[in-house]
């Protein structure tokens, strides 16, 4: 949308005098809602069979949990450049949004810290402060895309994104799209996609946001964001700095006598800048320019088995720039975009005298047009060209790739009840045949609060440069690799209803997928070589419920429950054996769930979040595993508002039950820890 909307940089908590709730009234409200909920379904005789399944789910959902999008408090800034392709062409049942409150409270954290609690996502952290990756509905991080303003940030070298180098201070909006429906975005989105967006809107006046956070393990985080937003142009500059020593105590169970040891060599120092500009170039045209630079100097944490000092470091440099020009003409819109992305990782090990630098360079150009024939017919089409280059001592000079893709999406609304969406993408790349990918989705509103969804999709992932071009003494890439590809199907239903002072929404879906030609590195004559070997079968269920009850306008409680079941098994392994057949893939928990509760009363707020993660196996024959664990965080805070300026003070207790856990074997994670966050937002009246 070209027109600017109201927004707040800092989601402020609504403030008002505390008002007591009438317990009798609350009782009546809750009972009425339960009655309404079931009445809605009993009225639907046609769907009685489905009712059985729904009832089962309602029973099950009380055992599962997680975080939710809090629709309440304050809206995040609507960003002009957010890809409409994303929201217009996805089933809402697959979309999970990080609510503004959570994003605001973790403004000093990185993306991994935020996504950790999200059901259906696995975060693998190689030690506190170490490399952190994500995987969705699958065991592999390179099958989950992470897009910034629509540009894929997956490194062409290894297909991964290091979440620790993505400060949430640079994120205005965060959404997760589960499943392979995001085929419009090309390679790498087989398990799902995470969309992070940031930008600056027009006509919002001047703003200064200052954030400071002081936490355990000598952690200091600071951020400053200055926005000047006028009628025809807007600019926003964010500066971010983080310094953490991260020497935390843990129980050492690797020695004969258990003792308290300190994690060493896990320090982090980050400095980043994001500069974004929006210019109105005509009555109906807009130009945005975005720049993002980050320098992250991380020590590589020692494992718990390490007995001597280690001195290895990862120095990450990211430079990203994007230019978008948008034109809107009645029913037609056109966007032309270009992004340049540079990633550099230097690994240094003083002990072993090793020093490696791996770099990648990507140029992404895209033209996209959207045509709205009428209220019911929408067509989107475009062309994308991506040019990747890898530079490393371990890569051959051939590590280059140019690919061009055509994409098309059609959305058809029928009588405001049924919507059909077809997405397709055909990509062309030299020396590799990429299948036509598509997703076909249907949504049907069977009654006002209830909708059914179903979808099928086909998607793919290109081999990474490491897969294709790596070469060293022990391993060798394979230039003849084919893309991984897969099919997925899913169906589900949603329920959403609002009462006078409360709202309930729930959704449940079943999904299954099969991925073929998965790339596995296997020893061939004791040289590790990647081959298209494995087939993986996934199936699972995702359930979510959000409930909000208001005792008054400024006194309300939200509760979210979330649960994911995921069975992911390899049906064709590199080393076929009974020991690995039909067994859960390594590092994929079967169950993950959580509960998230927030209580806002006037100037104060308190939030409690608990996540449960099932055990994960670390060997494919299930000889070894990491125990399941449950983590809980609490945050309490108070908001002060004077005129349009706000000051927020919050105190977080993380891992409040002091749970001992590991997300990757041999890497200790911290017990209970704290941080104090101060946010100050100074803003002027907006320009007209």
């Amino acid at each position, binding site marked *: 949308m070209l027109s600017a909307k109201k927004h707040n940089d800092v989601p402020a908590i609504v403030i008002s005098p505390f008002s007591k709730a009438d317990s009798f009234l609350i009782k009546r409200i*809750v009972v009425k809602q339960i009655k309404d909920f079931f009445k809605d379904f009993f009225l639907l005789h046609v769907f009685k069979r489905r009712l059985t399944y729904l009832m089962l789910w309602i029973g099950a959902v009380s055992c599962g949990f997680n975080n939710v999008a809090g629709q309440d408090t304050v809206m995040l800034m609507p960003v002009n450049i957010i890809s409409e392709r994303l929201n217009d062409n996805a089933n809402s049942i697959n979309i999970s949004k990080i609510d503004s409150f959570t994003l605001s409270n973790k403004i000093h954290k990185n993306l991994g810290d935020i996504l950790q609690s999200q059901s259906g996502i696995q975060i693998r952290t190689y030690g506190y402060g170490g490399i952190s990756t994500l995987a969705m509905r699958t065991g592999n991080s390179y099958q989950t895309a992470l897009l910034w303003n629509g540009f894929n940030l997956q490194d062409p070298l290894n297909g991964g994104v290091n979440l620790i180098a993505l400060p949430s201070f640079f994120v205005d909006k965060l959404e997760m799209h589960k499943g392979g429906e995001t085929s419009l975005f090309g390679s790498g989105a087989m398990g799902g996609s995470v969309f992070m967006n940031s930008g600056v809107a027009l006509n919002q006046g001047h703003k200064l946001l200052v954030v400071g956070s002081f936490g355990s393990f000598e952690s200091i985080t600071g951020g400053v964001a200055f926005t000047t937003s006028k009628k025809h142009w807007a600019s926003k500059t964010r500066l971010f700095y983080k310094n953490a020593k991260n020497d935390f105590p843990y129980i050492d169970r690797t020695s004969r006598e258990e003792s308290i040891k300190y994690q060493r060599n896990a320090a982090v120092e980050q400095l980043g800048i994001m500069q974004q500009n929006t210019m109105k170039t005509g009555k109906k045209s807009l130009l945005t320019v975005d720049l993002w630079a980050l320098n992250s100097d991380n020590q590589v944490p020692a494992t718990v088995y390490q007995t001597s000092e280690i001195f290895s470091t990862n120095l990450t440099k990211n430079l990203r720039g994007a230019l978008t020009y948008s034109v809107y003409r009645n029913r037609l819109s056109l966007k032309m975009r270009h992004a340049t992305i540079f990633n550099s990782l230097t690994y240094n090990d003083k002990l072993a005298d090793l020093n490696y630098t791996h770099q990648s360079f990507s140029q992404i150009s895209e033209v996209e047009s959207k045509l709205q024939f009428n209220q019911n017919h929408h067509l989107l089409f475009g062309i994308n060209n991506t040019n990747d280059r890898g530079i490393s001592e371990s890569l051959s000079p051939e590590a280059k790739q140019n690919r061009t893709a055509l994409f098309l999406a059609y959305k058809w609304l029928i009588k405001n009840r049924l919507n059909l969406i077809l997405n397709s993408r055909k990509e062309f790349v030299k020396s590799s045949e990429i299948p036509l990918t598509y997703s076909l989705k249907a949504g049907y509103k069977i009654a006002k609060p209830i909708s059914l969804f179903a979808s099928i999709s086909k998607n793919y992932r290109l081999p990474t440069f490491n897969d294709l071009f790596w070469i060293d003494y022990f391993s060798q890439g394979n230039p003849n690799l084919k893309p991984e590809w897969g099919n997925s199907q899913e169906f589900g239903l949603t329920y959403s209803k609002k009462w006078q002072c409360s709202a309930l929404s729930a959704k449940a879906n079943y999904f299954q997928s099969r991925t073929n030609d998965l790339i596995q590195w296997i020893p061939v004559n004791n040289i590790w070589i990647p081959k298209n070997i494995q087939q993986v079968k996934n199936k699972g269920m995702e359930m979510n419920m959000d409930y909000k009850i208001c005792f008054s306008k400024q006194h309300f409680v939200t509760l979210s429950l979330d649960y994911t079941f995921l069975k992911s098994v390899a049906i064709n392994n590199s080393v076929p054996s009974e020991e690995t057949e039909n067994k859960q893939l390594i590092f994929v928990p079967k169950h993950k769930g959580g509960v998230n509760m927030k209580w806002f009363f006037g100037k104060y707020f308190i939030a409690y979040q608990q996540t449960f993660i099932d055990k994960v196996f670390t060997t494919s024959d299930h000889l070894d595993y990491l125990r399941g664990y449950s983590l809980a965080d609490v945050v309490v805070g108070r908001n002060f508002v004077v005129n349009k300026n706000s000051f927020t003070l919050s105190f977080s207790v993380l891992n409040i039950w002091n749970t001992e856990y590991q997300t990757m074997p041999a890497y200790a994670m911290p017990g209970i820890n704290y941080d104090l966050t101060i946010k100050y937002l100074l803003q002027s009246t907006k320009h007209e």
Partner: protein
Amino acid sequence: MNKNLFLLIVTVILTLFSSCKKESDNQDSIQIVEGERIAFISNEGAFGFGNSSLSIYYPDSGVIENQVFEKINNRKPGDVMQSVNLIGNSLFLIINASNKIEKLDAKTLEQSLTIGNFSLPRYMVANSENRGFISCWGETGVIKVLDLNSGSIISTLPTGNGPEKMLIHKDKLIVCNSGGFANDSTLSIFDLNTLELDTLIVVGDQPMDILEFDQNSVWVLCRGKMVYGSGGQLIEETAGSIVRIEPQTGNITEKVMLQSNQHPAHLEISPDKASLYLGGGYGFHGVYKYQIATQQLDAIPLIDKSLYGFNVDSKTGNIYGLEAPTFTQAGWLNVYSPTGFLMNRVKTGIGPNMVCFKD
């Protein structure tokens, strides 16, 4: 129902979650059979995962027990068990990525000492029950001289790059400088009385393994060199070789060149010292036999399998081949007769790499 009911429901759910019962560790008891011969097997595990393990195999009954260290000592030994060494009545486990050595009672396998602060330790030899020598790739290549009783480091001897296997020969310590993360082609020979470097002998590119042949000579396996350019392309490759050398004089009395693209990592000798076996390691398929008397290297492998490591039982001459098909699941021990006939196959831990025999 009142407003507190809402919070009560939440509290109950939270309690259910936070009170999940922790699973207990696998505490299977283990009984070491007394009087039987034992082959100790070190299983590297996957690097960084800390899932190395120790297996014991009874050659007479063909039975294997896995994860014995964990079962007896109620903890895992560490990250990447590079080698296992029997010295007197003690067993020493070299834990490479943990930079430590675990000392165990060889009869009970109960841990008695943990010696830390090494830098990438690899292998171990000893000239008595009191003094051991540990090759370490860190610190640009050193041998740590260790008091085996107290665990204290007596001295540090600088070597060439990547000190690997060692041999005590008369009053000398001979170290293969394998190149480690770089290249080398020398043997460092130290005087055991003075702990001073005696001589440095050039033998061939990347000397990996060494064994005693007779009073005057030893055999050395040189893996050969592979150098990759900045673009990842192989820009230099030299052939591997097996070399017979007289350490006292430094004279090379016999040298057998291998094919230029073959780079075995392990060398063993038959109990009657009539044959050498070479093979194993990354990038090499099979185990080949070299007849010392006829100076004949077989063209066909004695064992047609990719082995990560192998050792010869000095009592029976049987060849213990170790397979590491992946590092995410258990490997295998294949026991072959001296003629290459597969006699037994049992599952080990992850990444088995070395066998050490106790009579």
